[in-house]
């Protein structure tokens, strides 16, 4: 079994502030970087206990070089993708050769009353596919789904875990904390979270046979509402995007990976709008 792990950081146990997951922070980030790494390690250990052999981990947070590599299993069957930008960002390296996907440390979508809620970028006010408001988990799951690969484990705060399991009932959810608004949490301890993730990963392996790829129905319609007008000004430059409002753009395609790539390109060019012209 080949398992792909896309690991984010905001959904790590205890984490409740940007400072704790900002790589430039010298005090709290190193602690939570270690906690993130150990949660990923727990997911790998559980996967292995459940029969996984090859593991591909994609560091999917911020600079995407958070994981402490020497804390991960030191065998040839574990590989880690580090660094940014990557064309496929949080799903880099995901393809049809993967048997199942884990999302660890995930967080709720922009607009949810939940811990550090956002969707790829603070410039995104809301992103929807075929009218469904999407979290990073759902956008990424649909990319995996377009390759026929199911998501079987999601860990993070209760908001994202419950929403994801509702959309993908075959997946195991591990809620390591309950959000109290945007920047406070009621959390498991790190040790308890790791135990829960390890057990969840083991159970997720047993569910692969029954799991389904998550897909939207083609043709796909992507709508992005931006935080500000200037971000939509820039996204509109990308071929294929239509301006649908002061802070809204639309992109349609019969090909989900193309739609997903358009979303990523939109978030990147939107960031360029945040300077003073």
């Amino acid at each position: 079994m080949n398992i792909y792990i896309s690991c984010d950081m905001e959904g790590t146990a205890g984490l409740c502030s940007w400072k704790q997951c900002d790589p430039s922070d010298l005090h709290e980030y190193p602690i939570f970087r270690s906690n993130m790494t150990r949660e990923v390690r727990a997911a790998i250990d559980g996967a292995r206990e459940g029969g996984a052999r090859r593991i591909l981990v994609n560091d999917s947070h911020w600079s995407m070089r958070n994981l402490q590599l020497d804390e991960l299993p030191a065998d040839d069957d574990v590989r880690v993708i580090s660094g940014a930008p990557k064309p496929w960002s949080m799903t880099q390296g995901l393809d049809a050769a993967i048997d199942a996907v884990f999302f660890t440390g995930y967080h709720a979508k922009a607009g949810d009353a939940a811990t550090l809620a956002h969707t790829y970028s603070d410039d995104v006010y809301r992103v929807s596919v075929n009218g469904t408001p999407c979290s990073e988990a759902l956008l990424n799951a649909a990319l995996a789904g377009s390759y026929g690969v199911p998501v079987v484990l999601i860990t993070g705060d209760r908001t994202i875990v419950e929403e994801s399991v509702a959309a993908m009932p075959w997946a195991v959810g591990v809620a390591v904390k309950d959000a109290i608004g945007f920047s406070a949490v009621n959390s498991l301890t790190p040790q308890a979270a790791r135990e829960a993730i390890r057990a969840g990963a083991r159970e997720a392996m047993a569910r692969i046979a029954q799991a389904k790829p998550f897909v939207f129905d083609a043709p796909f319609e992507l709508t992005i509402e931006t935080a500000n007008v200037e971000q939509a000004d820039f996204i509109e430059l990308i071929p294929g995007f239509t301006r649908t409002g002061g802070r809204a753009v639309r992109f349609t395609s019969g090909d989900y990976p193309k739609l997903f790539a358009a979303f990523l390109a939109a978030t990147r060019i939107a960031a360029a709008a945040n300077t003073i012209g």
Partner: protein
Amino acid sequence: MRLYISSDMEGVAGVCAWQQVDARTPHPEYEIYRRYYTQEVAAAIEGARAGGAAGVLVNDSHGPMRNLLFEELPADVRVIFGNRKPFSMVQGADGGFGGAFFIGYHGAAGDADAVLCHTYTPSIIYDVRVNGIRCSEATLNAGLLGFYGVPLLLATGDRTTVEGIAEQMPWVRGVAVKESIGNFAADSMMPAAAQRAIRREAEVAIAGAADAKLFCFEPPITLDVQLVTAAQAHLVATIPSFERTGSRSVRFVHDSYPVVFKAFVATWRLAAMSS
């Protein structure tokens, strides 16, 4: 006849250094050259009116695109300000104009003996080709004017730039206000003399508008951009329907030139995020 003017600053008489045209980092010389720039645009407008133009739209097309001292322009022209325009240096060109002027233009990235030569963004664009034709800003912008049925009538700037435009568009009248000595030195006309020459040629250009032709790119239109770094190309290639053609190059093909033009703007907007 309605007239469209796209005005840049590097090709103004006397200009030979970035400090003279850098609006973002205040330098005393900028204020001096900003006035010469405004005066060259005013001279072009005066000449155009003498030749019969009525209804002038000026698009400030340099840097932050808010350089013109517009109280020094005739009271009845209109001016486009601000640099976040989807069509950038040729924003508003679809307004039913009988002709266009490029004032203060400069050479393409890589030109020898062209003061401050670059193509839109110096640290990003190494080379641009459309349908295999090497493009300066003038070439790219004239293509959009051509799409809207507007012929380019007059171009001013250094000699390399003006002659480069005349090669691609032989009907365009030119005023070479300076000879470039490399990229950062010039042998220039005095501002007042340059303005007189621009006024005179603008009048002649308007009078001869009937003989001008349109510069158009034939579809399918292939945009080939060579970036300065591989990291920039890596990022730009993430735009759907862009093709990575080399470590530092990308390609985009489309039948509509306005779409191609906006894709080019997206290219350097996005590439700026690579570092």
